[in-house]
């Protein structure tokens, strides 16, 4: 056994987190910043943070991930990081020539109490920011929330750094896609485009973190939301925030500050959540849903009805980010599957009540935990085994020990490819998820069948 020391008996823990189902804010902020065109993320802290975040993002996307750091030393930790950051801004604009530097903090600079607003102002005042270039920022203390919180904070940092109101409303919708894959962001946009709705989608890492091999390295590839688009978000008809944990903060900011009305929806993973996204967009933008989307929807329903026997009643354990889990849980319930253990590392009581509501008709008791960990999930599984495990790559240890079919979903996925190219949002994404779930279950069936029950037609 790989996790040989995990006991079946569950004891209460108050202080020790074991095998977390989250990581810290700055990496989420870095990811969000990469979804802005021409943007260099900057980590205001010691250089290990930046190295770790770049490594993790790189392993997940198998793509270049650049970001700079203030490279704090013991001295800066005592006297504050202003000088490091000013120096960094100067060097970055000189050497790497981005259009934007997007600064996020770390536990270190937050504990010291560095004031980003003041430092950034000083950078502008001191002429460290070349004409037409920008520095935006967000506080992302690692000891609050999770990587999802950091993403959320940076989304707000982006709009608070760029959004303007000209007074002339634009016939466009803002869409904040949430902490999802580049492929998902592209798919969210494609669905809107298919409906004839013009969108400003931000952040947008498609084309950035799933870019082509061209034989030339571009530090700032073609993808990402442009400054011009971001500025226009204050003039949009409305904002759709997908995933309340990751996206509602920025949407509410635009609502409060610029009176751009917002709707917060779950991530459009699965049939019902995608329906909700499409239908909300339809009503918001006053458009008709084209037959092409109704067709895609029908294909998903078709596979759901055709394959229902393999899904019905199958118990699932899930871990990951709250927005993902809420949408996945709803999808699984829609499929007549039974999510029984659901853990996110991200704190937030609304997570537990939302999941409880989605699973209220469950035939068996459901274990739900926010700010939980994978150690607890594993113990739950030992006490109540499941037919399927869904989560990021770390789940493979539980899957192997407990011999459970495993579908990789979420962040990070470090040992397979595909997630950044094929969406799991939208109807097509639902089909992909369904294919993955079915393959996992049917592969297991094939593996475990006796010779007499090993069959050709399933």
């Amino acid at each position, binding site marked *: 056994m790989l996790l040989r020391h995990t006991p079946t008996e569950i004891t209460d823990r108050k202080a020790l987190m074991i095998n977390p189902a989250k990581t810290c804010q700055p990496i989420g902020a870095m990811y969000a910043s990469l979804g802005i065109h021409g943007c260099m993320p900057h980590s205001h802290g010691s250089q290990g943070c930046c190295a770790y975040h770049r490594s993790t993002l790189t392993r997940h996307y198998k793509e270049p991930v650049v970001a700079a750091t203030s490279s704090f030393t013991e001295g800066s930790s005592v006297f504050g990081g202003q000088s490091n950051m000013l120096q960094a801004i100067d060097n970055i604009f000189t050497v790497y020539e981005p259009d934007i530097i997007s600064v996020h903090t770390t536990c270190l600079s937050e504990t010291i109490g560095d004031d980003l607003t003041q430092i950034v102002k000083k950078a502008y005042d001191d002429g460290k920011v070349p004409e037409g270039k920008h520095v935006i920022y967000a506080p992302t203390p690692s000891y609050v929330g999770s990587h999802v919180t950091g993403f959320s904070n940076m989304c707000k940092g982006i709009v608070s750094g760029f959004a303007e109101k000209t007074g002339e409303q634009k016939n466009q919708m803002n869409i904040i896609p949430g902490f999802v894959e580049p492929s998902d962001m592209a798919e969210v946009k494609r669905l809107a485009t298919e409906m004839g709705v013009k969108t400003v989608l931000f952040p947008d890492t498609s084309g950035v973190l799933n870019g082509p091999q061209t034989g030339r390295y571009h530090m700032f590839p073609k993808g990402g939301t442009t400054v011009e688009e971001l500025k226009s978000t204050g003039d949009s008809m409305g904002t759709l925030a997908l995933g309340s944990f990751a996206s509602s903060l920025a949407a509410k900011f635009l609502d409060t500050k610029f009176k751009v009305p917002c709707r917060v929806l779950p991530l459009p993973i699965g049939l019902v959540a995608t329906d909700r996204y499409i239908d909300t967009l339809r009503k918001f933008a006053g458009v008709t849903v084209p037959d092409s989307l109704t067709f895609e929807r029908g294909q998903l329903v078709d596979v759901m009805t055709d394959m229902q026997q393999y899904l019905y009643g199958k118990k699932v354990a899930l871990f990951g980010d709250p927005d993902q889990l809420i949408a996945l849980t709803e999808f699984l319930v829609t499929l007549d599957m039974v999510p029984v253990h659901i853990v996110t590392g991200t704190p937030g009581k609304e997570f537990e009540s939302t999941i409880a509501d989605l699973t209220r008709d469950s035939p068996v008791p459901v274990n739900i935990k926010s700010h939980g960990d994978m*150690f607890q999930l594993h113990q739950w599984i030992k006490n109540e085994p499941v037919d399927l495990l869904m989560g990021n790559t770390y789940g493979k240890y539980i899957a192997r020990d407990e011999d459970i079919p495993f579908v990789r979903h979420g962040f990070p996925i470090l040992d397979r490819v595909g997630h950044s190219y094929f969406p799991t949002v939208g109807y097509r994404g639902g089909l992909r998820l369904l294919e993955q779930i079915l393959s996992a279950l049917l592969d297991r069936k094939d593996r475990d069948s006796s010779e007499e029950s090993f069959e050709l037609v399933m």
Partner: protein
Amino acid sequence: MEAPVTDTNRTESTHDVDLDKVRSEILSKYPTKVARKRAKQILVKPGGAGTDIPEIGANVRTVPGILTQRGCCYAGCKGVILGPTRDVINIVHGPIGCGFYAWLTRRNQTRPASDDSPNYMPYCFSTDMQDENIVFGGEKKLKQAIQEAYDIFHPQTISVFSTCPVGLIGDDIHSVCREMKETLGINIFGFSCEGYKGVSQSAGHHIANNGIFQHVVGLDDTIRGGEFRINLLGEYNIGGDAFEIERILDECGISLISTFSGNSTMEQFANSHTADLNVVMCHRSITYMAEMMEKKYGMPWIKINFIGARATAQSLRKIAQYFEDDSLTARVEEVIAREMPAVNEAMEANRPLCEGKLAMLFVGGSRAHHYQELFSELGMKTMAAGYEFAHRDDYEGRQVLSSIKVDADSRNIEELSVEQDPDKYRLRKTEEELTSTGQIYREYDGLIADMKPNTFVIDDISQYETEKLIEAIKPDVFCAGIKEKYIIQKSGVPMKQLHSYDYGGPYAGFKGAINFYREIARMTNSKVWSYVKAPWEKEPELTATYAAA
């Protein structure tokens, strides 16, 4: 920020690139202060024999905003040195990220003695500090976390690692550890390895060495193993390297008392002072330990290297030489004779595929030096190399140690004052005896000495410099870490991770050499790179409407 696609059949010409010109071009992009600093860290090794080793800037701060390969002190302490040991519960005291990122990401393989031997390496333990712990202090939570770890797992050893905010808010982890050690009756100790300490991972190595030396080494005096007893220092068992070295040592009849630290246990560390010789792989990260053990316990150390088949054979001979035993010498020669035919066969098969091709190596510790052995066995030239977190002695050799100025960043890293242990000190060989073995102890000549003339040596290379090097020299393979991997590959250059081996390995020892030859031959000869350009990019003009034959 663009590097052009590499074309094929161009290796010959690039031997003649004017590196000084390249260097000037690189520096010209930097602001003056930065350029001045980087100028010291970017050397062109002069041509001609017998030239002096030039001085290089190393172990100095990275300039803020300049994209670096480096990590932090915590990464060096927890990630590198303490990570590969399986029978200790390592609790990271801090917000969750530090624990999370160092969780199973380094490919340190380990082989517990049995199915129920302790192995906590697949676990990540953290105090997951929250807001209120930062405001009101985290000691109570840490204490509780240690208690919970003990209650659930009953380990023999628990260690604690401080992350950035812990140092700032003033949590005294050492007193918590002492208290809990007393309460629980197991070994518990801490590392003040906050990320901001030092200028790179290097600070963390030193802190880790100090901690293990103070809290573990020397606890168990049992004499284990056979006649020829050594410790292997600085081998972290990435991709199974240590397994291959263990295999070879075992076949030679050499007993490995402990490895610092790969496939390792606290039990072995506790017992390590009983060995007769320390052999050091990674000069940067672990020589502290060799020096402290020699002072306190009396065994000498030699620098060896198991990367490269010839280097492996040479290292085995050096060990045998120390023991001055004919039967050992004979057995070592026997093993070498048995292993080399397969190595030579693989070398000959792959060399024609690699000969004349160019490599670049920018990895931490000693690997940017050691791996030149393997490339040279393949007939490849290393055109540029450098370290992520080295000191001047790693480049220039230990003879410069006394001339290295201790700056503010290094001064803060404790230098233990070590004395002979009144009971356990045992001088293995006198200086005369050592000299009479015919080899030099406690010595390392550094990377620069082994570089070919007209090559680059660059300390703490930046992303910008990496791109410029690729553009100018167009290497056939580039070795660095995960952060660099896809940036380099986007330029059309195959990239080999020499931290994690890209899920490959082992590359140490004889079998490792064979693996590496094949790997490099694959990388530099794979068809996939020939498809980078689309046909319509190669031949964009249109020939009106197609006329069928």
